[in-house]
């Protein structure tokens, strides 16, 4: 039974409970002499509906996570399972094929051995489907019966419903904490496993990056896991090249739009710049790889640089800078707008030209906000994936020449996790260690930027 159908079933049962409870409350109301209940009928209805839907939802969530495992276990208990190869990739393929046929996802099996398992799978799946449906119905019935029997004319349904609602609200806001914990825990867990195989010193300070997913997992060569070239590539593309493009262009756009442009132009140009920020990064990546990178290579070759690469750091960095322009410009825009008009007027009244006012008064006053915006922009640039995956290369290279190919942390995360390596291999786990470093660095940048903004804002209030 797919989770979708169970969810629909849960909602249907909830609706039934809602209608039944509402009808019940209305009969109370008609029967009572005063025509009044402690709570309105719809609150009785919601009380019963919540008592049905919430437990069922909890069950569906648990069940859809456990049922496939139970099905596989019961298939493995069938006599045919003795012929299966021991643990490993082949065993999994056979089981997956049999499952695909049993669920109707594919027509036939390639592996003759898998045919043996189609029937057991079909039986097990239908058995567990029935168990799932029956337990769902049972839970819904129990919850519904319990709550329905409590309905009385003087039952304070509203207070109960509101208590449940408050609990749901609190739960919803806890999802953010759970997500943060989830990110942190999963990264730390895999990173610790990785550091059990490769020492953190080799990883953080080594200068040679060439993980081999096919090498013996039990005895990895720690000298191949030096991440310095990746950190350098990330910094060079995201924090140097991209910022050389984004900071002047973004800052000058913001200055022009806030200080010079007439409001009508501003009303059109600002949304147009924001389109730049809304273009999906995969489109930028395609643009960089298809149009910009070959153009840069041809240009470099025409200048007589023979070893220019078609996957240059420059192409990825330039396009990333373009993507960041609206981000820098809107942050600068905000902090410039926060500078009190009196400071600007004062400077102009002293006889300064507009650009002197901007350079000597407005920019220094807005500087903390601008710096914070730049830090956020850098954190976005070093976390950016698709542009560098498509336009930079996977070759780790410790070089300051922007025309050479370079790789970044995010490119390597993608490369390590979309390869063939198994989950216990240091090459695969290194992606999590890289992700952990990336997470910590972007978090630190964001945290500092937010603190700077906060302090700056207080200055004028």
């Amino acid at each position: 039974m797919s989770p979708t159908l169970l969810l629909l079933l849960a909602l249907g049962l909830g609706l039934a409970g809602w209608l039944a409870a509402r009808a019940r409350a209305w009969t109370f109301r008609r029967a009572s002499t005063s025509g009044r209940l402690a709570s309105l009928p719809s609150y009785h209805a919601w009380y019963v509906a919540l008592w049905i839907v919430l437990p069922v939802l909890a069950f569906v969530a648990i069940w859809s996570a456990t049922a496939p495992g139970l099905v596989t276990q019961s298939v493995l208990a069938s006599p045919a399972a003795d012929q299966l190869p021991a643990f490993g990739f082949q065993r999994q393929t056979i089981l997956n094929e049999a499952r695909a046929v049993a669920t109707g996802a594919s027509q036939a099996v390639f592996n003759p051995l898998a045919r043996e398992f189609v029937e057991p799978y079909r039986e097990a799946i239908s058995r567990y489907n029935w168990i799932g449906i029956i337990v769902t119905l049972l839970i819904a019935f129990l919850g519904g019966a319990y709550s329905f029997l409590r309905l009385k004319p003087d039952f304070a349904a509203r207070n109960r419903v509101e208590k449940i609602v408050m609990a749901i609200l609190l739960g919803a806001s806890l999802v953010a904490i759970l997500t943060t914990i989830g990110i942190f825990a999963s990264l730390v867990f895999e990173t610790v496993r990785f550091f059990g195989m490769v020492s953190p010193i080799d990883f953080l300070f080594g200068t040679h990056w060439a993980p081999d997913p096919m090498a013996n997992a039990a005895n990895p060569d720690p000298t191949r896991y030096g991440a310095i070239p990746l950190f350098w590539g990330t910094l060079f593309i995201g924090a140097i090249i991209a910022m050389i493009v984004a900071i002047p262009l973004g800052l000058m756009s913001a200055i022009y739009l806030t200080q010079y442009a007439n409001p009508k132009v501003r009303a059109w140009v600002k949304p147009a710049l924001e389109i730049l920020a809304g273009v999906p990064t995969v489109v930028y990546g395609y643009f960089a790889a298809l149009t910009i990178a070959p153009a840069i290579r041809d240009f470099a070759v025409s200048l007589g640089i023979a070893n220019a690469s078609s996957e240059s750091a420059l192409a990825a960095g330039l396009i990333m800078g373009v993507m960041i322009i609206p981000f820098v410009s809107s942050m600068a825009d905000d902090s410039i707008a926060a500078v009190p008009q009196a400071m600007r007027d004062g400077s102009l009244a002293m006889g300064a030209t507009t650009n002197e006012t901007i350079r000597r008064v407005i920019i220094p006053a807005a500087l903390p906000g601008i710096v914070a915006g730049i830090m956020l922009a850098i954190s976005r640039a070093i976390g950016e994936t698709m542009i560098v995956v498509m336009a930079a290369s996977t070759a780790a290279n410790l070089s300051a020449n922007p025309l050479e190919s370079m790789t970044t942390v995010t490119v390597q995360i993608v490369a390590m996790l979309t390869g063939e390596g198994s989950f216990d291999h240091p090459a695969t786990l290194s992606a999590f260690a890289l992700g952990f470093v990336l997470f910590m660095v972007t978090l630190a940048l964001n945290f500092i930027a937010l603190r700077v903004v906060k302090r700056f804002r207080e200055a004028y209030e």
Partner: protein
Amino acid sequence: MNEQIAPTRTPAFEARLKKRYAAEKRFKALGLSAIVFSIAVLIYLLGSMTINGIGGFQRAEMEVPIDFTQAAISVDPQAIEDGTAVQALQAQGLPEVVQYYAVEALGEEGAEELGTQAWRDVAAAIAEDPGLVQRQATFWLPASADLAAGYDGEGSQDMQELASTLASQGKLDEKFDAGFFTRADATNPQQVGIWGALKGSILTMIVTLMLAFPIGVLAALYLEEYAPKNRWTDLIELSINNLAAVPSIIFGLLGLAVFLAIFPSYRSAPLIGGMTLALMTMPVIVIAGRNAIKAVPPSIRDGALAIGASPVQVVFHHVLPLALPGILTGTIIGMARALGETAPLLMIGMRAFVASPPDSFTSPATVLPMQIFLWSDEIDRGFVERTSAAIIVLLAFLLMMNGLAIYLRNKFEKKW
């Protein structure tokens, strides 16, 4: 008395002033050129995608007249109903019939370059209109990728010659390919379509919306209306603000390590993709929701409380409806971001080759940006145009969503 100029306007002053005004002009021009450059890049990007992509909505097709009265092909109405008409027609030798007429019309060499699956288009047309088998009909069938390249003036010399011969006879032409919107991924650029990826995107977005919207709105309500000011709520706020700034690929790592560990059999399913993107979208909705809720004036709450509403009623009957337009605007912007997102889905295996549109939330699927990414890796020249065409479709969706958000904002913008 000409020397009696005002003491301040000395020649040195005049020179300085001139310099200062020149600097002013330069500075202004610099600002303008920054904007012009950014807009120019945007126009160049959109323009090059459009010019490339227009061709992607077309494909090279060849004209093949087929006289069904000469071929013993019949249609079983039952087979059409069962959806097995294509197989039934294949069994009756339809591929051979198509091949025979292709040789008649295009010659041996030309018929060779008819796509090997071209007869399927004929079969689909017959299933649509069984009356076809009683008469003569002319079909435009897809040419092979090689011939299509030849038509564009690329590829081998032979193909270019053949293409120009056929084109001059009017038997080879670029035709608008409606099937691009209804087919799924394939290995041949002449046969690919975006419906599979688009449907995957839609299913993924449904899951994302169903999870992120309620959780985001409820969390925003709690934080803005009920949360006591203590260390716990500070922690919640801090984690939401941080989540909004975490790189998207990290969410992919979370999805891989947590969701795929819990649901190993739903690898590359829209369900997992949607759950991962929901975690990414939720903070955006919370932040937009809090701003919208904050904008509702306290007098509304006080008025409702004064006539005896409970705190929950105040929020759900009065505050939420007033804040909803603002929340919706934020939600649409968050969903637009999720729609264009690729990196986290790359981590959870949505990069598989999926040749048929997904039929449920749990079947393997790919999404539109991922399809663009996969096609961009193809070496075949024909895929370049197809990729740009898919990009146009994706950008059209995003512009529509952003336009809707702007419209909603303007329509419901209120001054209290």
